[in-house]
């Protein structure tokens, strides 16, 4: 396999509503910033992968219009769509296309403009034979899984709230993050509106407008273009059965994430992820998920996740900072969210994360989550 590295990233400001930019312009802004960061021209780009949850904006083949924003004119453009994992799937697809030997430089761009869709429009177009009769939205589905997780693990709302606090405080140092709350407290999370027991408003991710782009370069080009590229060391995907009731305790066990992480660690030679990984950008749509996924990612023993948040292990100055960017809990333009995870992980490896940079990052983990417990795991490293 030809080695591939990320050599540049770019994001728009993520916000509740981008009135100033249409979808193509939003993508144009993120793309331009990524190209500047990578110190290349759009003419250098050999292929483009796009990611977007098109029904959130009611579009059919949105790449037709928005592809121009990524500099797609007469270029190979492909749109990857796998639900919530679209962004990480697009990053994996871009990496594979670059490693294939056919393209030297591949651009990946994800975007979403939730402000353009009716509330829950994407969710509305669920399976009419089954899911459409059971309207509880993403929050209700998460709450159900969480009720099982709490019952089995004894995790408290306070511990979940600490995850929400960590995310928003970290986001305050990330200029592109949507929810920046430097002074947020556990009490504030616990006293925010109850959406579905035990999930409070501040336990959940927001809906954002935003775009994120990153640039891959194949081995030789990466080394000549970038002094400290983020090499892709593992890309693993696991999908699962289609209905929420198919597997009990999905959020708890998350067998897809468990299996994908195990395989990715094996590829890279990681045996003690908590110490061998220097920073993680994980796709946590709800505070409780981050705790459950510490276990699935093998960062702690089964049932010991709460201790990691209690003792600050995953804080910015902890042994493994998780989501220095603020994560999905702070920024969630869905089609871009997975790309943001990979881009932020790359920024950490490249030492370009600015105020939310973790010191001495050699290895970074990024994950994608979507649908009913689908997972992508990507590992980046300073080492080729």
């Amino acid at each position, binding site marked *: 396999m030809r080695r591939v590295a990320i050599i540049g990233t770019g994001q728009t400001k993520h916000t509740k509503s*981008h*009135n*100033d*930019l*249409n*979808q*193509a*312009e939003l993508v*144009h802004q993120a793309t*331009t910033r990524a190209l500047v960061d990578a110190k290349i021209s*759009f003419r250098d780009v050999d292929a483009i992968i796009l990611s977007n949850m098109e029904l959130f*904006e*009611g579009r059919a083949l949105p790449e037709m219009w928005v592809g*121009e*924003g990524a*500099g797609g*004119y007469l270029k190979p453009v492909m749109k990857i769509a796998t639900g919530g994992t679209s962004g990480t799937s697009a990053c994996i697809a871009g990496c594979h296309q670059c490693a294939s030997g056919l393209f030297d430089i591949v651009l990946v761009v994800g975007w979403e*403009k939730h*402000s*353009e*869709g*009716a509330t829950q*429009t994407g969710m*509305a*177009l669920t399976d*009419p*034979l089954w899911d*459409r009769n059971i309207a509880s939205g993403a929050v209700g589905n998460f709450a159900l899984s969480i009720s099982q997780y709490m019952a089995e693990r004894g995790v408290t709302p306070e511990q979940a709230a600490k995850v929400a606090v960590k995310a928003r405080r970290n986001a305050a140092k990330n200029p592109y993050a949507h929810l920046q709350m430097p002074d947020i407290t556990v009490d504030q999370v616990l006293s925010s509106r109850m959406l579905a027991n035990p999930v409070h408003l501040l336990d959940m991710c927001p809906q954002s407008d935003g775009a994120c782009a990153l640039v891959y370069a194949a081995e030789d080009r990466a080394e000549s273009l970038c002094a400290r590229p983020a090499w892709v060391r593992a890309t693993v995907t696991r999908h699962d059965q289609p209905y929420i009731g198919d597997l009990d305790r999905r959020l708890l066990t998350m067998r897809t994430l468990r299996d994908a992480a195990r395989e990715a660690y094996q590829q890279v030679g990681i045996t003690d992820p908590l110490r061998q990984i220097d920073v993680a950008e994980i796709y946590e749509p709800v505070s409780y998920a981050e705790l459950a996924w510490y276990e699935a990612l093998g960062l702690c023993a089964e049932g010991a996740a709460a201790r990691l948040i209690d003792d600050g292990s995953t804080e910015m100055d902890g042994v493994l900072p998780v989501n220095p960017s603020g994560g999905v809990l702070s920024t969630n333009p869905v089609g871009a969210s997975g790309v943001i995870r990979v881009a932020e992980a790359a920024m950490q490896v490249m030492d370009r994360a600015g105020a939310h940079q973790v010191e001495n990052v050699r290895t970074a983990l990024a994950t994608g989550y979507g649908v009913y417990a689908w997972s992508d795991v990507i590992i980046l490293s300073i080492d080729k």
Partner: protein
Amino acid sequence: MPMINGETNNRDSFVSARMNLTFNYAAGEAASRFLIALRDEKKIFGTRCPSCSRLLVPARSFCPRCFVETTEWIEVGPVGTLVAFAFDQSLQSHARASQEYADPNKRLCLGLIRFEGADTSLVHRIGEVNPDTLRVGVLVAPVFIETRSGNILDIAYFKPVEADNANSI
């Protein structure tokens, strides 16, 4: 009649579901400025690409070929040349299903209009035309609606004009 398991049961063979959803798309600053000029001044603008020098109509914030931001705003038209057109030919089109064009005598015609100085064409509706006689190359001019809202349909359609009258529009 669809068959399931050997039984004819039209009712059970499929489930119909309708979606009624409204979306609100940001026009972006360049398109907003273009549409506001239509609304407030009945003027049509293009933007010029500083790299390839093409004048893009309708106005765009960036050139899709050169990937650079456009800089110069230039008014075009209002009279342009019809370079291609299409009538709803076969009752197949989406527009035929819409209320406005449900009347078979009222056929939606769409056309590409090239303004002098522009390097691209504007696609818009063409009105007050006869399918049997309309020809490519005729001059067309915009017909604005009274209550304009900042929408591409603030121009109801373009209609053919005589070359002699074109200058006076």
